[in-house]
């Protein structure tokens, strides 16, 4: 356990070393928030609520969604792809570490990093510049738990695609497709409430909504009963465990085919 904590710490430090890059991320975020603000403002021009959401709720959903997007995107598949291709994956394989846990630790390091540098500023922006109003409710308390589980789900999806690299050595297309699907079907871009009901019903059974929609619902509609939230967290947990097992099984197969290039 300690070894992985050291890796979390190391990744956090790398982030700090490249803190300048985050200025751009924050700047990009501000622009995105501005665009989203006017877009949704015009959509809500003639009505108080749409699909059961007020403008404030929708904007909070979308704005916070972008902050969480930066948190939960681990890029593990992209890292693994390049490291498998140029052979530097050997660097991990010769150390007494489990590859999956190693990447989980680096992703967690970036998560902490992003919370300090990107998410907190975004929340401050939402509160004080865009002046969105939070509704107070039990959901707010459960939000951090839900976010953490969402992180695991997002990581396992990325890691799963990363493991495909052991076979195809180039998963550019697959990664991109996955990113688009996750962003769209998880509510990362548009609140799921705005999707057709039939599609919503299908999405309900897929792991994607557990990544963005679930934690975002806890923030935007926190005044629901505890049971509703606990059920949501339960579904998240089920997905996390299922995906964890899937990656484990896949890893056992994939590692047998590893070809380390170079040397």
């Amino acid at each position, binding site marked *: 356990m300690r070894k992985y904590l*050291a890796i979390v710490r190391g990744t956090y430090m790398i982030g700090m070393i490249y803190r300048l890059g985050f200025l751009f991320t924050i700047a990009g975020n501000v622009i995105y928030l501005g665009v989203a603000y006017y877009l949704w403002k015009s959509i809500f021009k003639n009505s108080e609520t749409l699909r059961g959401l007020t403008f404030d709720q929708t904007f909070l959903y979308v704005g916070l969604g972008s902050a969480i997007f930066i948190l939960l995107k681990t890029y593990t598949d992209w890292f693994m792809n390049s490291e498998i291709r140029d052979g530097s994956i050997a660097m991990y394989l010769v150390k*007494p570490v489990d590859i999956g846990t190693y990447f989980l630790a680096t992703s967690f390091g970036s998560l902490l990093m992003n919370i300090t540098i990107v998410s907190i500023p975004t929340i401050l922006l939402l509160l004080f510049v865009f002046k969105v109003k939070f509704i107070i409710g039990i959901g707010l308390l459960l939000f951090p738990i839900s976010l953490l589980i969402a992180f695991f789900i997002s990581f396992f999806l990325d890691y799963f695609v990363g493991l495909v690299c052991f076979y195809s050595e180039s998963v550019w297309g697959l990664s991109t497709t996955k990113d688009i699907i996750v962003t769209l079907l998880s509510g990362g871009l548009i609140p799921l409430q705005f999707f057709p009901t039939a599609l919503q019903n299908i999405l309900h059974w897929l792991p994607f909504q557990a990544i963005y929609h679930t934690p975002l619902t806890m923030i935007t509609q926190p005044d629901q009963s505890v049971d509703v939230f606990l059920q949501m967290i339960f579904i998240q947990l089920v997905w996390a465990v299922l995906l964890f097992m899937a990656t484990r099984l896949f890893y056992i197969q994939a590692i047998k085919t590893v070809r380390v290039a170079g*040397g």
Partner: protein
Amino acid sequence: MDLDDIEHSFYNRQSLLFLFYFLGKIMSLIHIENLSKHFSILNRREGLGGAFRDLFSGDYRTVKAVDGISFDIDAGEIVGYIGPNGAGKSTTIKMMTGILKPSGGTIEVNGITPYANRIRQAQIMGVVFGQRTQLWWDLPVIESFKILKEIYKVDQKTFDEHMGLFNDLVDLKKLYTQQVRTLSLGQRMLCDITASFLHNPQVVFLDEPTIGLDISVKAKMRSVIKELNQVRNTTIILTTHDLGDVEALCQRIIIIDKGSVLYDGDIKKVNSLFGAYRTLKLQIDGYNDSTLQTLQDAFTQKFGPEHGIAIAATEEFWTDVTIDQARTPLADVLNFIMTTFTVSDVRIVEISMENVVRKVYDGALK
């Protein structure tokens, strides 16, 4: 002696043999038997059209990177594992370190099968791949070491001692705060070597650790490796294209080519092989088509028909004179050439890896 006795002694003999066999297996740290690694690779066609057709191609070819090698390495040995480019050295090392699964044969390091127990294997070994670093590219050197300390569960005291030792040996401290990616090649290599010994491993694999280093750093590197081997009895497998490294460090070498072992034994024997031959490169004034013949005749006249000198024109204006010193001393030949011909430039070239391998191929060690 009755029948019983004979049978008895037979059993004794048998069990003694077994005992030796098992002792041999137990005592050797690395045991490799008939190991092979075959890669099947797609024959890629040229051009864009070719790339497109490759999508549907099943045209695979097998590369036998390692093809049935066997050897045993004892604890505390430094073994030079050498051979020309593409011989299969790195592939063997990747199997010994547990990052590649062999296609066939057995491999055991300290009694365990590396690829099946990758994490356990990793704990008892250190590795340096010369072309890449095992440190964290973006972190300062000392932070990389701190992470390694945790990964290998090295206690603070051992860590301090180790870093102290390397400080004394190679003056590492001044690099501590520098990002790994900003280190020069030699500095990075020293850090990598330090890292590979950090957890006091039983065996260290060094795959071209002196690649691209200048002479003084190389010398430093050699003495560090030697020192650690002596002080800690660390087993070292060294791959290199610099025969100087091998001469300075190894008592035993294993030469492989095309995935098979060509020679496994004492370096002295090979040493005599490349020690006995020296090649003189000459630039002779007034060089023309008959120069080679003139030289040949002059040598025969001077040193007799058994002179052991081979002459060849390799590049323009240069004549290679390869001398078997066992028959004719280099100094005599040089002396004779200088007094008989007008020579504008002379070089003495070290024998190359390729030449050694070629000679071994030709049966020079049999």
